[in-house]
């Protein structure tokens, strides 16, 4: 089997067994990127020198008998993670010249685990988008159909792994930005519990919602990489100081006897019928595995999208105020005074969607409107959180579709922001409540992948991954590769 068709876990085992070196593997993937990236636009920056240096170090570690599960395995990082000495753009003109002076904790930990950095992946500007069309570096194409979007905001990471230009990639998820692109490109993507993965060096969008995670080929790969990147970090004030369980070691935990909740609100009018059918088939497989299915209702959940579009823009308007053209980032030409410097640097450096969200946030936080919008949204967020809490008193995990439709065509939704926002209707709830959630491929609809979402209670990553792994032992959707990239 060609090297690029192997999962990250298989590649790690192959390196340790001496079947191939990390150097060979790294050159193989760099070669695939060299030939394929022009078509997909999945990478903003490729780092061949760094990759080959990482690979040499990994091969030496393995030769010394100290290799771990991920030693020598190539990885791509979303360009939202700061990488020391390497361009870190966040998909924005604002940071088109920003060479980070430090590594994000996620990058540092995955390097310590022995992974090899291939480069930085394309993304919606500042992670604000659901189609990867807001990137300053241009849209990413879906390897399953290059006229379609890969989803967003981690669209470059999704396309890179789906086309096997990288075995695995990091992503971030504020409202669905790992799970929705994973669903649209046939990958397994996990966003852990809020506070599980350090946000240090992860460029902030909405701080109460942002979490780092993984886009992978399987639940096993997702478990291995998540385990390596998780854990307490004193440099992130919301990092949670509880030990990380061995996610990979818990994959084979029995699922028989678990109770799965089917969220009634996720199977309403907006769901594409063929996508709904694929999810139903997956539910039958769970039933055959001895899992009990329980239908339940989360009545406040339909308000998650409007809640998110108050909370996230509010936080983004505050976070992005740091980009002022003074200390780093884009500065306009010939500012005539300080106000002109601020307003033109920001007006020219940010793209249309980012400006729209900053203005939405500025408005909902402005004097006289704060109670009506922001405070109201945080109260509705409590209701949504309470719905989840009640549900998890009855069931072990919740299951439903990840995205209402398969990948749509490039340009199809760019004119109406609200239509675009509704792509995240099933994913946003987990962010508002800080819950771990995963998307796994569960079928093809007219040749396009669709995803099954598994949501767990806080810190139940092991259970969510075990459920997905049990499903992936019964099915092979996660091993499908777009024909053009096999």
């Amino acid at each position: 089997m060609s090297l690029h068709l192997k999962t990250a876990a298989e590649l790690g085992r192959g390196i340790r067994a001496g079947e191939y070196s990390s150097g060979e593997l790294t050159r193989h993937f760099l070669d695939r990127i060299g030939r394929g990236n022009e078509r997909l636009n999945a990478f903003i920056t490729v780092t061949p020198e760094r990759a080959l240096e990482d690979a040499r170090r990994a091969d030496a570690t393995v030769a010394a008998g100290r290799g771990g599960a991920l030693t020598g395995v190539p990885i791509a990082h979303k360009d939202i993670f700061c990488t020391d000495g390497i361009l870190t753009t966040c998909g924005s003109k604002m940071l088109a010249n920003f060479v980070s002076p430090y590594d994000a904790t996620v990058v540092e930990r995955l390097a310590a685990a022995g992974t090899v950095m291939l480069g930085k992946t394309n993304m919606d500007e500042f992670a604000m988008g659901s189609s990867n069309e807001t990137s300053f570096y241009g849209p990413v194409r879906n390897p399953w159909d290059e006229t379609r979007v890969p989803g967003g905001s981690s669209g470059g990471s999704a396309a890179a792994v789906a086309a096997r230009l990288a075995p695995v990639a990091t992503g971030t998820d504020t409202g669905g930005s790992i799970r929705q692109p994973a669903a649209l490109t046939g990958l397994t993507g996990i966003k852990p519990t809020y506070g599980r993965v350090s946000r240090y060096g992860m460029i902030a969008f909405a701080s109460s919602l942002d979490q780092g995670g993984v886009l992978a080929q399987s639940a096993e790969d997702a478990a291995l990489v998540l385990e390596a990147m998780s854990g307490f970090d004193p440099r992130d004030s919301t990092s949670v100081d509880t030990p990380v369980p061995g996610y990979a070691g818990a994959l084979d935990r029995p699922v028989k006897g678990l109770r799965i909740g089917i969220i009634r609100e996720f199977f309403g009018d907006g769901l594409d019928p063929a996508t709904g059918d694929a999810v139903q088939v997956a539910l039958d497989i769970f039933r055959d595995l001895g899992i009990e299915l329980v239908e339940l209702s989360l009545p406040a959940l339909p308000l998650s999208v409007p809640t998110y579009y108050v909370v996230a823009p509010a936080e983004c308007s505050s976070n992005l105020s740091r980009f002022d053209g003074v200390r780093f980032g884009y500065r306009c030409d010939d500012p005539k005074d300080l106000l002109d410097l601020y307003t033109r640097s920001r007006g020219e450096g940010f793209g249309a969607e980012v400006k729209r969200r900053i203005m939405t946030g500025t408005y909902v936080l402005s004097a006289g409107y704060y109670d009506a919008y922001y405070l109201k949204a945080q109260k509705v967020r409590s209701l949504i959180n309470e719905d989840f809490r009640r549900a998890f008193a009855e069931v072990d995990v919740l299951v439903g579709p990840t995205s209402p439709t398969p990948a749509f065509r490039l340009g199809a939704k760019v004119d109406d922001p609200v239509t675009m926002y509704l792509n995240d209707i099933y994913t946003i709830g987990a962010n508002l409540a800080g819950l771990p959630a995963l998307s796994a491929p569960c079928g093809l609809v007219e040749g396009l992948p669709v995803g099954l979402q598994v949501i767990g209670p806080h810190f139940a990553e092991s259970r969510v991954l075990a459920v997905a792994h049990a499903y992936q032992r019964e099915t092979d959707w996660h091993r499908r590769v777009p024909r053009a990239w096999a």
Partner: protein
Amino acid sequence: MTLTRRDVENIAHLARLRITEEELPVYVGSLSRILEFIEQLGSASTGEVEPMAHPLEDQVQRLRADEPTETDHRDRYQQNAPAVEAGLYIVPKVIE
């Protein structure tokens, strides 16, 4: 909620964003549409509900001892600055 051009100019000013004449009507339309969309929050009954402060229960803001933990990286950091002189960030004259 329908915003006027004047409203959007005011929001843009508060956000320190220069919006061009061509962009303005686009934002008047799309921001009005977004506000209309989020107004459905009004349908939720939230009388006694506490606003959410943190996604995890019982989390408190962690404090650390007030001791320096970082060394000086000014020169390295200023390599990303648009304009510096003698270790200072340069901006247009503020006081004439």
